[in-house]
């Protein structure tokens, strides 16, 4: 999982989603990401593979059910929060106020969709900025060490990001025969 290009689609989607809002609403974070030098430090990356087992995707056989889950998620975010509309729009020419107004629609809708379908928990319950000590063996999937990484545990450091864990995920059931690739129907008013 160290090479980002190998991340499964669902994980990338979630990551894009979370980073998107952080960039939008957290100026400092955006600045850190924007300046290439600062990047290695600004890494408290949200680790959030939803439970829709990303592993089978790595297997050679075509993973059709997984694709459906991803499509469903996209359809859900589009339906509730106009997610695809927003990402597909060229925002460069618009004023921040206009983007902000649209972001409210996307934020409130996607947030509702997220909260209705995924029970999120932080990986670490301590406050960000608190000193934490990690005992061996380290759960590499749940905790990432950054900065001066060396030696053996127990590791003592500052919690930069609490992490996110999908404790429970309930996706809608697709009705048989429904084309999941249609994320949003075209609408024609008569």
């Amino acid at each position, binding site marked *: 999982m160290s090479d980002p290009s190998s991340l499964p689609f669902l994980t990338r989607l979630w990551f894009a989603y979370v980073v998107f809002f952080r960039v939008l609403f957290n100026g400092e974070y955006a600045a850190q990401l924007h300046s290439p030098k600062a990047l290695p430090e600004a890494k408290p990356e949200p680790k959030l593979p939803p439970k829709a087992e990303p592993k089978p995707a790595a297997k050679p056989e075509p993973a059709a059910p997984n694709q459906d889950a991803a499509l469903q998620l996209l359809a859900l975010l589009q339906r509730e929060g106009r997610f695809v509309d927003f990402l597909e729009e060229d*925002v460069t020419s618009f004023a921040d106020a206009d983007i902000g*107004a649209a972001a409210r629609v996307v934020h409130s809708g996607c947030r509702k969709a997220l909260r209705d379908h995924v029970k999120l928990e932080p990986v670490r319950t301590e406050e960000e900025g608190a000193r934490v000590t990690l005992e061996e063996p380290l759960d590499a999937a749940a905790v990432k060490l950054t900065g001066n990484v060396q030696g053996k545990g127990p590791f003592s450091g500052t919690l930069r990001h609490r992490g996110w864990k999908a404790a429970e995920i309930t996706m*809608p059931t697709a*009705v048989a025969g*429904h084309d999941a690739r249609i994320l*949003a129907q075209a609408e024609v008013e008569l």
Partner: protein
Amino acid sequence: MSTPRYVVGIDLGTTHTALAYALIQDDPTKPAPPVEVLGVPQLVAQGTVESRELLPSFFYVAHESDGPQALPWDKKRTYVVGEHARTRGVDAPARVITSAKSWLCHPTVDRRGAILPAGAPEDVERISPVEASWRYLEHLIEAWDHVVAKGDPELALSKQSVVLTVPASFDAAARELTTEAAYAAGLEELTLLEEPQAAFYAWLAMRGDQWRKDVKVGDAVLVVDVGGGTTDFSVIAAVEKDGELALERVAVGDHILLGGDNMDLLLAHVVEQKMLAEAEAAGKTLELDRWQRVALQHAARAAKEKLLGDSKAKTAPIAIAGKGSKLVGSTLRAELTRDEVTRAIVDGFFPVVDADARPATRARAALTQLGLPYAQDPAVTKHLAALLARHADALEKVAGGAAPAAAATSGKKGAAAAPKMLHPTRILFNGGVMKSGVLRERLVSCLTTWMASEGAPAPLMLEGTDLDLAVARGAAAYGLARRGRGVRIRGGTGRAYYVGIEGAVPAIPGLEPPVTALCVAPFGMEEGTASEVPGQELGVVVGEKVRFRFFGSSVRRKDAVGTALERWKSDELDELAPIEVDLPAEGRSQGDVVPVRLRSSVTEVGTLLLEAVPLQPRKKDERWKVELSVRAD
């Protein structure tokens, strides 16, 4: 019939329907089983099924172009019930039925006639208000059978003990139509329960044995239930009966079609006016389309909830997306301030009024919609003041003869002065609107002022139930109470019922013949009881439908069966839809006049049954049912 395994409470609401259930535990020494809420699978979008605790009470007649509206248990359905039906109500409003329950208690339409959706195009197959309610219940039955019973016929919902809630203000005909819908849907073991009582049962169940600390003999609990579409009041008195604390429902309010939806509509209107004014000031033109208006209503509701919750926020932002795929640039922005919400909602719907304020009866164009008799005065506080004044003497008659605390306190001031209004000592809120702390405080402060003016103590708030699901949960708790677990509220019919009999006087042109109102069922008639109406005989023509005028009164508590009223105050008796006897010709010749007496009973289900009993029966137990829910001319 097999023995039921579950008690099931169903809240068949104007805007939302919910189902709660509990396992029947026959061993009384074991702790009461927990009450759970069923997640109801429903279409939430085209081709997408999700389980939600609330099933929106909306019915969408699908168009050919929609394709089949498949559910896990039916692949070929041509209609939709639930969330997807509600959202389609925005896109294709002419094909969607809303507020079927309000139509169910509409006396001047044919409630069994295919009249909904009102104003639908020709190709839409219409259904009756009864059928719409039946479809909502059918959806719950199918969902239960799919999720809980899973094919086990013993566990099917039709075999369980079901408690169905109705507004306390529903008259006998509306109750009967509700049971008709339930039987049509396939429910077999059915009991009706009034919604405010259900809310109180939910509170009792939540408090466990502790409730006796909060409610004592002499207390009167006012239940204020403001839901999406209706406002319903009830007063429950705690009395002493055979040395035990007993509960008795002593007053119910009128049916008020006024709820959260009206408030959101008004707020959306306020915001729209503001956006138009801003656009005009900036020299732009702005016109909202239908979707934007609905989106605005949703956004206004969210903003209202934020501002009327207990938060300190001064403003709440509102953003409404355009319809096309372009989002940025077409999104409209506005802001709702605390002042605006306070003016529109708190002062508009819950104004501070004196104890002698009464609802106005002039038409209010902004709140009406074609067809349904919406409340003409939006002030909930005025409706409440009117209710308490009408039932000022309700506590005098309660069983056990224990002097209610409220009456005692007013007695201290001046023994001669009868209280001008009923004095509740406790208040329980229910319904989504009452989730707002600001609105609860407003109502309590109004009540406190009114009570103070009569020298009565301020009412205390009973807290702790989930206001959205309390009715369904409480209905299930009542189902358990009926099986010996926990205290029950006595009540009986919330009105007295009268048949109007025209006097035999020579016709005078331009003058209506005088009508005598004959009491056929007294106030508080309890389920399982029956009585023959003494005195007056009625003549019924064989083979012809004979109609009688029918009246109800929620204030004449002392009239016994057979009481004949020659005159009454205009606000004492409400005329209901007429009743009708249709005597089959069997054994008698067409056109004969058969003298009959009326017999009234309250069934185990909780509906009023009127029967015509011939004075000279041709066979044993000969009697004919009197139809209650007839369309008025």
